[in-house]
């Protein structure tokens, strides 16, 4: 796991916080329509050099469309995309310093694995020996050395995906677009490849944009994540920021598991707010700088692992709700307790399993107390 340590972006890499920094890619109010259908709506975004930028969002939200615009296969209906200082629109796809790994792989069926991987280098008139060396390097990276002479139709789905990844990576482009590059790989191979990708990206100082449906993957590899919804960006921030400080229920829900409690606000002081979530019970207290008028609907988002659960009422706690254990989800290292509270909704509390299953004191139908600090959750107005 040494690679892990060396590739973890250290907190001093944050060009997005530096107003003087020129972004590598700049989406400027980009709208993309297919007929009447708006796939991307007035989207503005900066991606900086050496970033590992992840696009996260449900199927059909426009991730591939964004990549295709960067690669030059689609043109914005409105707005501009700048690459470095230059307007990208004028460059045809084959003249852009951008390579893309296609979601559908798009491997050349009449060429073997080697030829597929070397294709881009050959177009650049790279010397034969150099092509050979780079192809071998890529083959070992994706662990496909024994398959070098196979045609794509003789490969499994995951092998095809790795060839596609190797092909897009072979030219070591300034900007690499990876559309779900690891989705078909098993967990172990996926994690290995993730770290290899991070290594390459770090060592060569490349910029990667990745689409993934695996939030864990996004959190592992990405310097920043853009959470998308219906052609719009909901939040762009570092994985930790999105996880700890989501700006909306949508992004809280998209990254990781979350309890969302709806209620009405009372006075907010600018430091804390109260949320009336049930007629019978005491309001919840949340630390927040948000100031909302009284009686507006708002939400509290709190991660399951931040909730504590006990059989006895805790002596002091900012928030405490009584409930009944409804279900227990066991995933080996952690257990998730689903607790039904007075208004019928379910709260999830995660506890790491330090004791064996049989020794655990809390079980089904037990009356328990779920409690957390006022700083554990996020107060949301949307």
């Amino acid at each position, binding site marked *: 796991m040494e690679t892990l340590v060396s590739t973890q972006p250290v907190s001093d890499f944050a060009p997005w916080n530096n107003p003087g920094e020129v972004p590598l890619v700049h989406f400027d109010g980009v709208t993309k329509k297919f007929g009447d259908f708006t796939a991307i709506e007035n989207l503005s975004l900066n991606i900086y050099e050496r970033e590992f930028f992840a696009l996260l969002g449900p199927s059909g939200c426009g991730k591939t469309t964004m990549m295709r615009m960067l*690669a030059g296969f689609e043109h914005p209906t409105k707005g501009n995309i700048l690459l470095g200082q230059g307007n990208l629109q004028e460059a*045809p796809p*084959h003249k852009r310093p*951008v390579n*893309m790994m296609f979601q559908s792989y*798009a*491997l050349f*069926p009449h060429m073997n694995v080697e030829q597929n991987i070397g294709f881009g280098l050959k*177009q650049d008139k790279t010397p034969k020996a150099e092509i050979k060396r780079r192809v071998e390097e890529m083959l070992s990276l994706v662990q496909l050395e024994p398959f070098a002479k196979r045609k794509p139709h003789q490969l499994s789905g995951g092998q095809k995906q790795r060839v596609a990844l190797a092909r897009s990576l072979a*030219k070591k482009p300034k900007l690499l677009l990876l559309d779900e590059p690891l989705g078909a790989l098993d967990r172990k191979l996926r994690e290995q490849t993730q770290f290899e990708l991070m290594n390459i990206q770090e060592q060569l100082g490349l910029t990667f944009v990745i689409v993934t449906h695996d939030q864990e993957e996004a959190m592992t590899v990405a310097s920043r994540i853009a959470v998308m919804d219906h052609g719009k960006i909901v939040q762009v921030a570092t994985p930790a920021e999105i996880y700890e400080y989501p700006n909306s229920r949508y992004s809280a829900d998209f990254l990781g598991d979350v309890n969302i409690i709806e209620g009405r606000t009372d006075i907010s002081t600018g430091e804390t707010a109260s949320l009336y979530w049930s007629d019978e019970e005491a309001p919840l207290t949340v630390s927040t700088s948000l100031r909302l008028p009284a009686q507006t609907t708002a939400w509290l988002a709190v991660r399951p692992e931040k909730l504590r659960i006990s059989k006895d009422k805790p002596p002091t706690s900012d928030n405490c709700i009584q409930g009944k254990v409804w279900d227990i989800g066991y995933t080996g290292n952690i257990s998730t307790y689903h607790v039904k509270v007075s208004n019928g909704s379910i709260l999830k509390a995660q506890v790491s399993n330090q004791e064996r299953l049989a020794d655990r004191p809390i079980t089904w139908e037990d009356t328990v107390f779920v409690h957390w600090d006022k700083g554990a959750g996020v107060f949301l107005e949307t």
Partner: protein
Amino acid sequence: MALADITTPSQETEQASVQGSGWRRSLLIAVPYIWLLVFFLAPFVIVLKISLSDVVLARPPYFPTFDISEGWQGFVAMFQAFDLENYVWLTEDTLYLKSYLSSLKIAFISTMIALVLGYPIAYALAKAPKEWRSTLLMLVILPFWTSFLIRVYAWIGILKKEGVLNYVLLWSGIIDEPLTILNTDAAIYIGIVYSYLPFMILPLYAVLEKLDYSLLEAATDLGCSPFKAFWVITLPLSVSGIWAGCFLVFIPAVGEFVIPDILGGSSTIMIGKTLWVEFFSNRDWPVASAVAILLLIMLIMPIILFQKQQEKQAEASQ
């Protein structure tokens, strides 16, 4: 290996569903076999038999004839009368060799012209907007609605000295003297290419239409210009269509008789024409049959190649 893995389950289910009704399956297979037997193998055997016979002034104009009333004896007698005289004759007179070679040459050149013309047309068809494609395809097939013979005759009106083509060329000032096209090899090429072009276009269209467009995107993404992408991606991936189109034009063009007869001059010899003369003018059925048998043998090679190609394609698309 991977292929076998994929095909076995479907084959098994197929077999299982068919086994219950074995006789129906046999009947289904028998129909094409009977068809081939009656309309291909039987005529072939008759022609083969005539080609081994001698020419006589009689009706029918060959000997021996097969008389079923003479039974086994007659059958043996017939076999004893067979010889390869006619085939030997074909090698002695250079006319036949010349006809064969000339047919191959004309068929080959016509096929190449059809390919060069057909490929861009098929490409344009495949790239046309979806809603237009069926209409455009219809236009390619439309000439088949008129008789082949009439269409070839119509070319006389276009190609002759005082025909439409010369009229247009003279009128537009491109030429001063009318061109002599009719009754030359050029007219034959025009006729063959025109008649068989749809057979070139259709298989090419079929492969080009199926071509995955994202492959071209991937190629350009990796730094290949669109022009080069055509040569390294599109063309190699349409090879099966090129083969199919070429065979479909070449094979009938070799034996073509009507077009050289109607549009070609007396100096052009093609095997189909030679055969016609032998059969109808010289009334030498045995030699004509020998010519036909040799033509068939000559064409079997490309036909086998064609079938191999089709099999390979079917395998690859699985």
